[in-house]
């Protein structure tokens, strides 16, 4: 364990992958967490779990979708080692495509809100001249697939945005932007699916996210072997790809 406190801010702190990453951090550092989310009781449960692991934490009950919040102000008071943007939702694509209100909401959760928060975080890290901005994307953003391209489009937009931020912050060698791309993960969001061999536990994905953050990676597939799967999926020629049900 290191001596000085390791400060971490987490948006969407009730996400299971984020919780597992925080546990991994608390296992290695004396850590302080600022937890952002909508449900104070659940943030409290996450905080108790981290506190039992020797960390300290504070809760900020906020609506991450709100455009009235000054996100830089929310980050005042600490010098951040890691800022982690973890919120997202896996929509039912067919329902959402036929309901413009739902569509707007899903795009807000998976794209607009993370972008708003990420740009505020980037300016905070720019002022600090250090720290990592980690954002959870998805392998779904790598290629539009008929079953899941709405979610994929939002995540690939988010990845492009993260690329741009990384470019803009490139002059600051101690500032990193890490874009994390989990594959299929066993979380409450996927509880209804039959778990085939491609599923990984949230614990594995969350831990691997921490490893990627520590190493200052620009992008990381979680677990790493998804890189290979997605490379193949990206390289399959369109005429063949379109005949699959992926």
């Amino acid at each position: 364990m290191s001596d000085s406190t390791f400060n971490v801010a987490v948006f969407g702190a009730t996400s299971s992958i984020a919780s597992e990453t925080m546990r991994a951090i608390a296992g290695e550092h004396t850590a302080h967490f600022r937890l952002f989310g909508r449900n104070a009781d659940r943030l409290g449960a996450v905080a108790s779990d981290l506190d039992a692991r020797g960390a300290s934490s504070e809760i900020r009950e906020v609506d991450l979708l709100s455009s009235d919040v000054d996100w830089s102000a929310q980050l005042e008071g600490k010098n951040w080692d890691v800022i982690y943007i973890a919120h997202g939702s896996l929509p039912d694509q067919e329902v959402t495509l036929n309901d413009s209100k739902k569509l707007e909401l899903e795009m807000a959760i998976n794209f607009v809100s993370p972008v708003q928060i990420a740009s505020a975080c980037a300016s905070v890290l720019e002022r600090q001249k250090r720290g990592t901005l980690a954002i959870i994307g998805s392998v779904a953003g790598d290629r539009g697939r008929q079953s899941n391209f709405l979610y994929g489009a939002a995540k690939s937009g988010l990845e492009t945005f993260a690329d741009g931020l990384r470019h803009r912050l490139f002059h600051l060698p101690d500032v990193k932007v890490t874009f994390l791309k989990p594959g299929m993960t066993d979380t409450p969001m996927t509880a209804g699916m039959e778990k085939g061999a491609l599923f990984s536990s949230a614990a594995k994905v969350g831990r691997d996210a921490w490893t990627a953050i520590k190493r200052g990676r620009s992008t990381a597939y979680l677990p790493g072997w998804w890189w290979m799967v997605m490379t193949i999926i990206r390289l399959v020629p369109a005429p063949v790809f379109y005949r699959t049900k992926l």
Partner: protein
Amino acid sequence: MSSQRNIYSWGRLSPSPCEVIAPAWQDECQLPGEKTILPFGLGRSYGDSCLLTEGTIIDTSHLNRIISFDEETGLLRADAGISLDAIMNFSVPRGWFLPTTPGTRQVTLGGAIANDVHGKNHHRAGCMGNHVPRFELLRSDGQRHLCEAGSPLHSATIGGLGLTGLMTWIDIQMVRIPSAFIDVEEIKFNGLDEFLQISSESGETWEHTVAWIDCLAPKCRGIFIRGNWAKYGDLVPHQAAGAAVPIDFPEIALNKLALKAFNTLYYHRLFQKQSRSRQHYSPFFHPLDAVQGWSRIYGKRGFFQYQCVTPTEAGTEPMEEILRIIREAGQGSFLAVLKTFGEIPSPGMLSFPRPGLTLALDFPNRGARSHELFDKLDAVVRDCDGRLYPAKDARMSREDFVSSNPRLEDFIPHIDPNFSSDFWKRMTAA
């Protein structure tokens, strides 16, 4: 979130279609009033006690947070769905361990209590349920009961097969450990008498004892393993599991010849009569956790585990007889586990362990042939007043279950009217 899907128990005998609800937060623990339900942990029970075909399964594995831990007393309060794996990862670096552990860490705390699991230290620590001062139980009428040790609902729920309600959070009394390592002694033995002799010599001075035996050998030969926590050594937790078995193996992989060769090799792994070593707790307690999903080596038809206990009063004859029947049938598994249960009674009304000898081994599913063999074994167990372990069972008879559980009558009034399981339906079918 709820949805329809197939789930399997560890023996993978057949898929069980059901509706699955997966609460991830205490506030999401709500039981649907009018449905038939059963809690589910990590599905490490072998048979049908964790299944409810066409019913509603409450998958608790996402309800997995620590609520509080007292570093002074070692009292841990956690969500019921936390795995023993996660608990050890947390507690070992702090110098604490679970009071007992089954042969795998991949079980939930709730599941471990609902089956009142035992470990290699049963003769010293009793069952998991001996170390649970209290928990909260949610019933289908929406009531939340705080169940303290000594109360009837507490005793009914420990070993209660998930039928009394949903445990939401649990207090468990952890124990201090000086290191993460075990000083191990392994001793070869030949015959049950020698086993018993080593076992009784070891009871006082060795905290953990178990034996692996080769059921195919003419005389019950095996290796007695005993261990104590090493006084010195680092407090390093286990590593995450390695390779997985992603698909069902073809059945020929497990023919009799292969089994025999494997068992013989295992026995002769030890050259001397006796050997000493220091092992990390993970290979010592959880040797099979190194290969994820190993149950798939038994192929598509799945497998049975047979675990019985024969009481001390009956002596060694029934166990000799059981081993003889298994040997003659030639269907036994890689290895069988033999242990002496101690005297510490569990509060659980349906708790499986009782003082005596317990044997556990796997049998690939050979349909009618397997059942004929089990029927013969049952007869021996019945005659000596022994019993079978529901956590491992997919086929015991209702009569045997009823006659071998003297506290069944006390238990039944505590069942939640909306809870049931495939096992329970089997035990109550006319």
